[in-house]
């Protein structure tokens, strides 16, 4: 699965995108964030306030309780500040 990061999530992780092979226990967006948090300091810092983080699956906003297993692309980013 392709995972993309934006704004300060991208900066803290140090990557704009990466391919992740989901372990079987990762089902929801929340599970994915917990899984990534364990990968290192940058991830832990990016997701320190994880309730604050937004997730999109295949270009559509989702809440953290939604399954991401069937998504081709997941993006994780801070609250948006466009307009």
């Amino acid at each position: 699965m392709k995972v993309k990061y934006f704004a300060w999530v991208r900066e803290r992780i140090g990557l704009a995108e990466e391919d992740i092979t989901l372990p079987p226990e990762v089902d929801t967006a929340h599970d994915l964030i917990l899984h990534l948090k364990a990968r290192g300091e940058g991830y832990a810092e990016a997701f320190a306030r994880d309730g604050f983080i937004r997730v999109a699956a295949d270009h559509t906003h989702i809440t953290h309780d939604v399954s991401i297993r069937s998504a081709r692309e997941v993006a994780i980013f801070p609250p948006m500040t466009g307009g």
Partner: protein
Amino acid sequence: MGRYHVSILEDALEPAAWMAEITPNPDTGAIATFLGLCRAEGGRLEALELEHYPGMAEAEIGRILETAHRRWPLFGILAVHRTGLVKVGEPIVFVAAGSTHRDAAFDAVRFVMDYLKTDAPFWKREHLKGGVVGEWVEAQSKDDTARARWSDRAQDAPQSTS
């Protein structure tokens, strides 16, 4: 212009040119527009840098415009958004809607702006006077409040599982 139009621009946004894109239908009596500009914030800023999520930005703005189309009788609606470096005084976003009557045109443009602020995947970072790259702009709770004013008719909100 067709039913609706979305553009993400790397270069200068010319509002007058985009305004002309809303070609009035013979029964268009009202065109409302909104132009959002980069503010100096009391002389503190030189520019804003806009990052966006290509693909999703167009898709999400498209969903917002489609929702506006379902909710109000519009002849056309468009939204244009900058990415990259936008200097103080330069346009960031332009929204225009045409309808028979003014209330529909005003409401549609305001609705689109309120949803754009909270749901379109763009992030702003400050560039301070003197050229120093500053902080990422924090999302404001007043933008969630503005968006919520439309949700008494939440069945019409852009479709998403959030």
